[in-house]
Every structure is written in structure tokens, then in C-alpha cells.
């Protein structure tokens, strides 16, 4: 008999025993289920109104050429796929998806790396590290617009302390936000600074829960600090890193204030990510129908991506079990 069969039979036994113990009949069980649904109904109704209806409206709108300057377009379903056909040939959208992919991959990897590194250092539990722990959280708790302004100041040669220093040293350094080759890097640096504390705090929490036995046993066996990290700590953190990465990946697709303040998507379109493009289409040109179609595609991509990652995370857990 396989492990799964044993487990399934065990659950069945426990269920039957529990029901017998409680003296429940099928009618009572149905009543109980109905009562639970009754309690859940208001919450489900609110959820439907707050999340599902707007999404549904967005989907419906994506089949219209809705343009705010022409209200008659709101219910024009004469060519429902026009927006979806347009986005297939929209080079600027394709470019924005590519920019988004670069930004997301690099920022998530960097935030995981820095977050892990700093969390491992802070986990040393010395008085200095305890004091530093809070200060590392500052970038994450600042309002995003403030973070953007801080970096705008840092990247503006005429007011930046960094450029003052460069000038004193006689270095002629171009500002990265107006350099097509460096503008995206400038956004990545600022975004990593802002959000690595998030991954750091999740990893720190996981480290605090980590059982000490394995480490102590390895230490007794003479394992070095690198071996401890590589063979014990990192495998233990694998699931945590995947969850933190997933959160950051989804969040990275929503990056907006940094781009709005620092580069406005430029120079040209080198820092124009998909959600910024959607913003331009809807709020600068009022093409609500088209931006709804792009949003639906982006939403579908995020859902698929999340599903893949969640599968990867849960698959990893099953293997461990």
C-alpha cells in the first residue's frame, strides 16, 4: 500500500469517527453547510461588488472602442475584437512588455539577493544588528512618491549631493535618468532600494522560526559557516524565497511612481512599462476601451504567472513532505 493510500484511509477513518462522536446526521450536516453559506453570503456579495463587478466591467469595456470624448462608444459592440487586434500590432505595447519583463526579472532577483544577504547578517542577533534592523525598513515604509522624489534629487545633477561630489573630483558623469542606456538601470536601483526590505523581513521571519537542531548538529560535525548556509539555511528558506519572489514579481508589474517622477517612461520609451503605457492610453488620450483590453491581457499574464509560481512553490513543499 502506498503512502497516499494510507493517508487517505486515515483521513476517512478520522472523519467517520468524528462524525459518529458528534452524533451528526446528513440532514444536520446539510443544515450546518447552509448556515455557513448564509454567514458567508454578505462577505461574498461585497467581494463580488468590489472586485468581480469592476473586473467584469473592464472585460466588457475591452470589447468596445470606449473613448471618453465620445460617450456613444461606451456601448458600441459593433467590432468587439478591434482592441485585441490592435494590441497584436502595437509595437509600443510590445516594447513596454519587454521593458516590464526586464525590470521585473532584474528587480526581483536583486531584491531577493539583497534581502537574503541583509537578513542573514541581521539574524546574527548582536546589539548592533538589532539596532540596524529597523533602519533597514525605512525605504519600504516611505510613501512611494517620496521615494521617487528622493531618487529624483539624487539623479538630478544640479541639486544632487552625488553630482556635487563628482564635480569636486572633476568627474564628468551623465545622469542615468536621461541616458537611454542607463535609465532603466536607474529605475532598477531605486526600486531595489525601496523594496529589498520587504524580502528581507519575510526571510528574517522565516529565519526566526528555523529549528536550531540541524545547525547545531552540523556545527558539532565541524561544518563551516558557508556550509551551514548552503546546505541547511538556504534549503530551509526555499519556499519563503519563492513566496517573497512571487509577491515582488506581482508588485513589480505595478511599478508606477518611480517611472512617473524619474523618467516619464523615457527617454523615448526605454523605461515605459506596460502599466505606464496603460496609464497614458487611458488618462492622456482617454482610450478606455483599448486600455481595458491591454489591462485584461496583462491580468491574464499575471494570473498565469502566479499559477505557475504557486504550483512551483506547492510542488516543492510536497517533495519535502
Amino acid at each position: 500500500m502506498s503512502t497516499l493510500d494510507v493517508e487517505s484511509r486515515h483521513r476517512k477513518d478520522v472523519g467517520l469517527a468524528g462524525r459518529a462522536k458528534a452524533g451528526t446526521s446528513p440532514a444536520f450536516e446539510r443544515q450546518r453547510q447552509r448556515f455557513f453559506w448564509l454567514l458567508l453570503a454578505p462577505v461574498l456579495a461585497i467581494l463580488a461588488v468590489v472586485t468581480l463587478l469592476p473586473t467584469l466591467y473592464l472585460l466588457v469595456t475591452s470589447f468596445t472602442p470606449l473613448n471618453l470624448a465620445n460617450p456613444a462608444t461606451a456601448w458600441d459592440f459593433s467590432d468587439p475584437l478591434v482592441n485585441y487586434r490592435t494590441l497584436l500590432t502595437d509595437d509600443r505595447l510590445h516594447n513596454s512588455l519587454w521593458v516590464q519583463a526586464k525590470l521585473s526579472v532584474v528587480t526581483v532577483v536583486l531584491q531577493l539577493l539583497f534581502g537574503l544577504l541583509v537578513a542573514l547578517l541581521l539574524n546574527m542577533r548582536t546589539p548592533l544588528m538589532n539596532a540596524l534592523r529597523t533602519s533597514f525598513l525605512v525605504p519600504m515604509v516611505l510613501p512611494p512618491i517620496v521615494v521617487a522624489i528622493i531618487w529624483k534629487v539624487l539623479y538630478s545633477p544640479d541639486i544632487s549631493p552625488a553630482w556635487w561630489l563628482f564635480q569636486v573630483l572633476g568627474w564628468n558623469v551623465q545622469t542615468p535618468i536621461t541616458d537611454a542606456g542607463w535609465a532603466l538601470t536607474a529605475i532598477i536601483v531605486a526600486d531595489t532600494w525601496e523594496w529589498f526590505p520587504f524580502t528581507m523581513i519575510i526571510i528574517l521571519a522565516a529565519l526566526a522560526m528555523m529549528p536550531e537542531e540541524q545547525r547545531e548538529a552540523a556545527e558539532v560535525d565541524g561544518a563551516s559557516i558557508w556550509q551551514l548556509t548552503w546546505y541547511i539555511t538556504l534549503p530551509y528558506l526555499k519556499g519563503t524565497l519563492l513566496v517573497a519572489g512571487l509577491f515582488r514579481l506581482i508588485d513589480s508589474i505595478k511599478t508606477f511612481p518611480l517611472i512617473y517622477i524619474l523618467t516619464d517612461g523615457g527617454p523615448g520609451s526605454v523605461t515605459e512599462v506596460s502599466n505606464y503605457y496603460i496609464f497614458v492610453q487611458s488618462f492622456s488620450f482617454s482610450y478606455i476601451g483599448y486600455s481595458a483590453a491591454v489591462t485584461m491581457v496583462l491580468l491574464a499574464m499575471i494570473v498565469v504567472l502566479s499559477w505557475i509560481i504557486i504550483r512551483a512553490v506547492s510542488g516543492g513543499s510536497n517533495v519535502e513532505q
Partner: protein
Amino acid sequence: MKRGDRTAVETVASAGLFRRDVLKFALAGSAMAAIGLRAPAVLANAKPFEGITLRGACFQHIFHTYIQKLLPEFEEQTGMKVEFDLQAFPVYNQRMDLELSTQGSSYDFCNITHSFSGRWISAGWLTPLNGFLDDPNKTAADFDPDDFVSGTQIAYIDAKKQVHGFAWEAGAMMMAASRFDLLDKEGIAMPTTLAELADVCKATHNKSGVAAFVADRLHHWNFPPYLMGFGGKVFRDPPGDLMPVLDSAESIEAAAYYAGLLSNYCPAGVLSYTDDQAMRNQLAGRANLRINAMSWLLPLAKSDDSRVKDTVRFALMPEGPKGSFPACNANAYGIPAGSRQKDAAWAFIQWATSKKTFERTALEMGGLATPRRSIIEDPRYKQALTINGQDIASMYLDVLERSGRDGYMAYRTVPVWPQAGEKINKAIERVASGQADAETSMKEAQAAAVEDIKKAGVKL
């Protein structure tokens, strides 16, 4: 008292109520008061908008600070209370675009941004003001709409001659050298042609650590005068023919010229400069020449922060091979179509853009970007705008009149201007940052503009 003798405020105070009625009720009220009775509520019509709260939205601008200082007098005379919702320029435009599209009644009056005027007016989101102007009970004879310089009103009058707004601010593009002394030292006069401008920049760039030129990142405002100077256009024949022509030989030549100024003669990081950053560079004497609306150049002579008061010189925008087309714009007050207090809103607009109010904002408070000819030609105005011996008032009036007369600013007030303007911004950035040459970039801009304009349902 003849109608012609009444001031705007007096008319405002009696709007919606004939003078005879006021007198009649006033007499009745006095009689009842005399016999100890409580005065009837209608007596309050001496302040016809008593109890009304008027809500308006505008972008942040010093003019509104002046207006807010004067508001207590207006509120006292009319009985209404006026609330302003002020937002940053880009935020305001986006929010108001949405707000107007709902035909909501959140605001009773609003700013009509010049570049959105065609879009908002053609969509029917603003109230025509002709009904108010034609009604002597609602409009004072001394309001004198013809006193507004033509270039400031052209964007707010539709094809049927209906007026939708009155300017509270006017912008006339001119050139200022914050460090004219550097040119003078080289024996160079202020450039009068675009070719001379390039030569001056080349000759003076980084002399004494001063960048020869500076601009902000609103290329859709800065660039079209160069474009037209080289013989190019944004649209083939606006407002009738909205086919963009950004890929013409003239457009490409203009883009190469303008992007060259940005990449060769400006301070580092100029592509990210806001209006204010560009102005600060001039105020501090770190950058010399700038071509922009007068409001952004006058602080060089008037601001306490200016280090260049003695060295600043002004000139008209240099001519291109095909002529001079300095940009002109004006922002106006209008009444949203959904407003439920249109009479009160008109009373406010009439007061805020009256000669008397502009006299105070322009001549007493220093808001010199005024749209009324009578103020611009006032000797006190001329005196205030005579800077280092130069008559700036004449230059200002010249630009406002020229754009009204020649109508070359029509490109900026068509409904699809935001789409084309954004493509210009991107195109110039690509050229100035070295991502593409002018030809490639302008052709890309043309293709993108055509695609985006088609989405608006415009047949090209």
C-alpha cells in the same frame, strides 16, 4: 444710472433680479422693519448669491493666489462663497478630463487648459457663454469681451462663434538671456534667427561655467515654433485635416536642430528638467538662453531669488528660414456643462476676468501675464515691463496679436492634440538621447501618431 455706467460687480450683485424689483423690495422691507416686523427673506437678494457655495477647479498658478486674496471682497458683495480646488498641472488636466466626461456637477467653474480646449469644447463638456454675454442683467457693459487680445481667446471660440471661456492668463513665447554679459563680452547681439542662435550657443557654451541654452521637457510646447520656423507642421491643415505630418523633410530638419540644442548646449540631465528646474538654472546663472512663455522668463528680472537681474535681456523668438511662429497660449475660466450654479459661476468668471480685477492682479500684485489689451497698454504696465531698458510689454503684445491674427496655434487646440503632442515629446527625447537619428525618430512618431489618432475615430 445708465447701463453703461454699471460695473461688473454691480451687475453681478443684481444678476437674476431687476433693479426695479430690488428697490421695490427694499422699500417694502424698510417699511416692515419700521413697524417692527421681520424683514422678508427676499431682501437678501441684495446679495443674490447669498448662501451659495461655488466650487471651482484649476491648476496651481500664482494668479489663483492673487484671486484668493481678492475673494473676500467679491464674497462680501455677492454673498456667495468661492472654494478653489487647486492641483498640479498634469494632475489637474487628467482629473478634469475625467470629471468633465461624466458631465458631473462637482465643479461650477473650472480652468480650460489651452491644449485641452478643442477636446473639451467639441465634446460639449463646457457651457457656451453667449447667453450670459447677451443678457445685460447678467453681464456688465464694462466687461468688454473685445478687450481680450485675439490670441488669448481664439481657442475658446468654436466654429459657431460660441464663446466657452475667458482667459485669466496668457503665455507669449519669447527668448531671454540670463547672462547677456557673456554674449556682450564676445561682441554678440541677441540672436534673431535660428541659425544665429546655433552660432551663439556654439560660441558661448560653457564659458564661465554657464551652459549656453536650457529648456524643459515639454517638447510638445517648445518644439512646434521651431518646426514651423523650418516650414513644417504638426497636422496638415487643422482643424479640418488632422493628418499628422511629422515625417516631412522640414519636420526632420527642425527635430535635428532642436535636439541638437538640447544635446550640445544644455546642462547635463536637461531631458528630465521640469519648467521650474529650467528656470532655476537661469535664475542661478548656470544656463543662459531659454525660449519659453513670458511667465517663465520674467522671474529672471523680478524674482528675489534671481542672481541675473542686471544681466538679463529679452528678445522675440528667433526666426526660422520660413518665418517666426512664437507659441502663444492662454488658460481660461469656463463653466462645466453639468454645473448646477451657472449664473453664480458666470458672476465669478466675470468678476475674476474683469478689467478691475486684472488691474489689481497685474499692476498691483505683479501677475503680468494678463490677456486684456487695456491692461497691457496701460502706462503702469509698460513701466513694470520695461526691464534693463527693454520694452517687454510690446514684445508680449506682438506675440499675442500675431498668433491670433495668423492662427498658427490651431494645431494645439484640436481634440487629438494630446496624442500628437506626446509623440513629439518621445521623438525629441529619442533624438536628443542618441537613440535614433531625426529621420528615424520622426518617422516613428508619424506612424505612432497616425495609429493613436485613428483610435479616436478620426478619419485620416
